[in-house]
């Protein structure tokens, strides 16, 4: 049965990619909020809180956090699509067919990665128009891509848990709010040094800060500090725990 895993996943990936390309509005919706935030922070708050050096420099400072917010927005649609599948009965049809059962989940997860990457490209293009500049070479870009994909995978598995256990469409998407909010209490918008003690302690030690700092260093062509290991550890840790929980939830659902 597992011999079909790859083929089945590809077929099902093709299916959910069609869903995406036929409702491009989801990708646009996902990009609009982060872009609006970026505009707001750069042109409204930027004068007061930016590290100086004009809007271009602040966009460059903000972008890593904005990318993570984009992903957090995007994965709520994964939860939603999974939930809709279960509601519509097509899920049961797949389950009653001789296919690799995990292919159903992996197809949604890979779709999440692809559609998030499209949204991220849109956000980066807008950032470039707003003055984002980087001296990052191909290797650094590759490293950014790697971290972004890893983060997407990790939080997508959280989305899978939410989608599988949701009772309503709204519930399926609600889990992503805390993840969207997390960058605000991190180094994404302002340096954590300005925050009061307990808040700073939280900001310094939550996953987003290390990921943001790593991407920022990569964009700035600075040698990445230890933060890259912390970032990778967070992504892998969240990913593995969420994956395990998702598989357990799935098993319970289909047996």
């Amino acid at each position, binding site marked *: *049965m597992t011999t*079909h895993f790859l*083929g*089945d996943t590809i*077929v*099902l990936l093709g*299916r959910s990619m*069609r*869903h995406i390309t*036929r*409702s491009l509005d989801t990708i646009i919706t996902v990009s609009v909020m982060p872009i609006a935030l970026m505009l707001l922070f750069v042109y409204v708050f930027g004068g007061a809180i930016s590290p100086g050096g004009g809007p271009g420099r602040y966009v460059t400072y903000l972008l890593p956090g904005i990318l993570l917010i984009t992903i957090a927005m995007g994965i709520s649609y994964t939860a939603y699509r999974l939930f809709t599948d279960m509601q*519509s*009965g*097509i*899920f*049961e*049809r*797949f*389950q*009653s*067919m*001789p*296919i690799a059962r995990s292919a159903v989940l992996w197809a949604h997860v890979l779709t999440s990665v692809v559609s998030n990457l499209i949204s991220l490209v849109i956000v980066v293009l807008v950032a470039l128009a707003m003055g984002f500049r980087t001296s990052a070479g191909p290797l650094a870009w590759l490293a950014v891509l790697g971290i972004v994909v890893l983060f997407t995978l990790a939080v997508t598995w959280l989305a899978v848990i939410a989608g599988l256990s949701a009772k309503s469409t709204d519930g399926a998407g609600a889990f992503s709010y805390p993840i969207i909010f997390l960058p605000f209490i991190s180094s994404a918008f302002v340096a954590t040094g300005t925050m009061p003690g307990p808040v700073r302690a939280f900001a310094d030690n939550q996953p987003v800060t290390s990921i943001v700092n790593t991407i920022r260093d990569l964009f700035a062509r600075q040698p990445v500090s230890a933060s890259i290991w912390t970032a990778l550890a967070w992504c892998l840790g969240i990913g593995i725990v969420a994956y395990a929980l998702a598989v357990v939830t799935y098993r319970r659902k*289909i*047996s």
Partner: protein
Amino acid sequence: MTTQVIRVQGLHKSYKDLHVLRGVDFDVAPGTIFALLGSNGAGKTTVVKILSTLLKADAGTAVVNGFDVAAQPANVRESISLTGQFAAVDEILTGRENLVLVARLRHQKGPGKIADDLLERFQLTDAAARKVATYSGGMRRRLDIAMSLIGDPPVIFLDEPTTGLDPQARIEVWNSVRQLAGRGATVLLTTQYLDEAEQLAGQIAILHQGTIIATGTLAELKQLFPPAIVEYVEKQPSLEDIFLAITATTAKES
């Protein structure tokens, strides 16, 4: 006698406190149409879900095409197709894409050709390139059944295949079901419509209060009908009369 395609023995299933199946037994012979008859909430869908490996029974055994549903679910899935009570089609894809999708997942050669043939057979060719979201209920149901036939599975489960269809669409579905059995497939269908069972099925089983209270051919079931009442009615008793009579007596006993 051991060549039954479906063999269900002592099936029990509860949802929390609700004891839905309380020892269900029945057999289905190869190449026949078998109707599982029951009113709303009798447990028909529950039986079908257990037989199609979507749900685990609490007790009892079920064997489909020689494979135990609990021990060899993968083999069972190779042998069956399920058309659930509610059309399980992808609304965003077109009709043809839905068929191609299932053909690919069933690892068939020439998925495009299979899809076109089925579209033709179910009179959906004109709507093939339209999103299923624009289909009528009857078209959706036909597509749903067409999707289930891909790969010619020897055992076909149809859960209330004609609920919500107009009389014309109902007759079309009936014809497809007869065709299937004609090709040698074994069909288990559930229905609340007694005339549907009467029309299609060689064997009929009535599921009521968690057990099969009567099973047999239409003629056999008619013999169970209390003769005293036959005198009052002019025409032959319909299955509906039999059903109501039997459920009334079991209700008194329990």
